[in-house]
């Protein structure tokens, strides 16, 4: 299938999700259940996207696992996004040199 069609669907849906409520919606969401789902969803999505895919992200599960451990450890100490990300990359790269 043409990549242009994929991009069109992707961008179209993403825009409509933002645009329709921004232009049309005038009420507040009342349901506590629905608000709770919306609160959890971004984190659940990122978690499901990250695991187990992160272990295949470098082409070698050992280097990826080392990078993952470094990322989790640094994130635990609330280091900035870019630091966590670059450290994971460096850890995976350095591990790769020894394999």
């Amino acid at each position, binding site marked *: 299938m043409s*990549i242009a069609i*994929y*991009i069109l*669907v*992707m*961008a179209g849906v*993403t*825009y409509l*999700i*933002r*645009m*329709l*409520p*921004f*232009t049309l*919606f*005038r009420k*507040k*969401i009342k349901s506590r*259940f629905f*608000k*709770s*789902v*919306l*609160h*959890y*969803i*971004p*984190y*659940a*999505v990122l*978690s*499901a*996207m*990250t695991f*187990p895919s*992160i272990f295949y*992200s*470098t*082409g*070698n599960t050992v*280097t990826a696992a080392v990078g*993952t451990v470094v*990322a*989790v450890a640094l*994130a*635990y100490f*609330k*280091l*900035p996004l*870019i630091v*966590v*990300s670059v*450290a*994971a*990359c*460096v850890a*995976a790269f350095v591990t*790769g*040199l020894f394999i």
Partner: protein
Amino acid sequence: MKKPFKRGMLHGLPIALGYFSVSFGFGIVAMQSGLKVIEAVIISLTNLTSAGQAMGVAIIAAGGTLLEMAATQLVINLRYALMAISLSQKLDDSFTTPHRLLAAYGITDEIFAVAAAQDCKLVPSYMYGMISVAAVGWVGGTLAGSVANMLLPVSLTAAMGIMLYGMFIAIIIPPAKANRKMLCVILIAAALSCIFKYLLPAVSVGFAIIISAIVASVIGALLFPIDEEKEETAK
């Protein structure tokens, strides 16, 4: 008091710097999924969102269906609908429908957070200032990451494939550390995703992710509904 457009640009600057580094990782992932530089750049320009784009690229690489693409984007980006509703209550009267149609493009987690924190009504030029600077950072980072993937040696770019996931980990770990309920939701989502990958490989990647995320979030919402207070700080 500065002009609203200029003030928006200033507020957009730190957002743009953060976006540059995240979309750099996206550029790398997009290239490694077999996309062209121009395609990665157009995706970033037209979508302006990280998780949705990463998922979209994975679906393109796997040759998924358009229904799968639409469904994953809907679920992953559903939070923007809530932010859009919230922001729509703060708009100045000068925010007419054409302005809303245009500014809706730039509702992201970070832009929402900064705009929602303003103690005045939002005018279109302020939003345009912030969105334009942030979008330049996002698209520029994608371009830089894509080009870096072509120029740098494979041993390095292979390791850079982990960068985007490193960002995701940096986003989910701190709230999981601070809040056991969030940790629970995150672990359920990860466990379900692993189950799909290893035990139910017939389910395509996009559906596996959204089913995992929705089930984990619904369990979280049923077991630990959020307080009304917390809703204000929810991302």
